[in-house]
């Protein structure tokens, strides 16, 4: 996975807040930059790809690591 420009830790937060925070973080990112989102809400594995599709950002992958999930998102170019 490419090196993230920013890492967002949403551990302990539940649906829909990991996505709400992701949306905020992506807004402040440069186009093409990568955001790493850490989440403990299992729903992230389905939510993140869906959110990326809806908002036309690129979902690079979501991986489980112990009790947390790591999602990589690349901000779309306008």
């Amino acid at each position, binding site marked *: 996975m490419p090196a993230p420009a920013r890492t967002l830790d949403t551990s302990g937060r539940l649906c829909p807040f990991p*996505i*709400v925070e992701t*949306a905020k973080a992506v807004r402040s990112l440069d186009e093409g930059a990568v955001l790493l989102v850490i989440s403990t809400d*299992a*729903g992230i594995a389905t939510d993140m790809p869906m959110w990326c599709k809806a908002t036309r950002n690129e979902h690079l992958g979501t991986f489980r690591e112990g009790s947390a999930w790591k999602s990589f998102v690349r901000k779309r170019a306008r």
Partner: protein
Amino acid sequence: MQKQGKAIAMISGGLDSTLALALVRRQGIEVKAVNFYTGFCITETQRRKGGRADGSVPRNEALRAAADLEVDIEYVDISGSEYLDMLVHPKYGYGANANPCVDCRVFMMRKAKAIMEAEGADFIFTGEVLGQRPKSQRRDTLRIIERDSGLDGRLLRPLSAKLLPPTIPEQTGIVDRELLEAISGRSRQRQMELAKELGVVDWPQPAGGCCYLTDESFAKKFFDVLDTREAAGEERRIVPEDVVLLSTGRHFRISPRAKLIVGRSEVENALLEHHVPGRARLEAKDVLGPIALVEGEPTWEERMLAARIVARYGKGKDAPKVAVEWREGELVETYEVEPERDEARVEALRI
């Protein structure tokens, strides 16, 4: 070329709102979806508790609908005190349970209106269907929601549009009224046909039911909190902590002065641990059992009763005596009690 408009969609992710989204999208109108987080969402709570009984994790349906139709979506958190105050004092009253759907819709539409204005959008639309729900979707109620939210003429219901007066986007030609629907009532037959026509293949089954406020047993606990505060001479109100506790554990009204909450699972026990300050924490010693909290000012007898119920839900329920630890701030006491064996009594106390 004024045709290319922009709209804000209020979506839940159910079939109706997904269809409304598809109907507007196919007219080439730019759409931004919004979904409101009230804090009473059952899906969210199921996730907090580690998924459903069968181990699956419920999907976020609003997100799914937006993704299927490639529509940008924004979550709006309205779970604060303004929303909670509305729940306690709804102008138009409650539905069958603790759901003040008319006031809730007005509340959401006002927020959506602010988003519409900020986004420079022309109108708002929803998946509401005329006559589908007994109270909140009657013709007069749909009109009240439009009027009270200040959205006169700018609130479109694509699924029932042909049965309602033309809205401004229909009059100005941003939306082609002919391509909208004339659905009313509870039958979902036309929706099924429309799903086929529009290529909508995925929606939640069974329909609806993501809001705790419409749940009967939740409503009992909700009104119990309000009534108890009022009886104690306090203001009738709900605070964010109540919302979490209302969907956690078994609740028992021990007396007008005391309520007992008993965890039903490891996850609920862990959750209750976060709400110990200001309450008494009960747990059986020496045997496995739930974490429980007592709110209020119980008498000695009421403490014993609470301890007996806690003992009854632990592994020591068949033992002659169980030691139950009572912690309240600095105070730590241990009560040797017989687990409560009178099931009818336990059930009678259940809220």
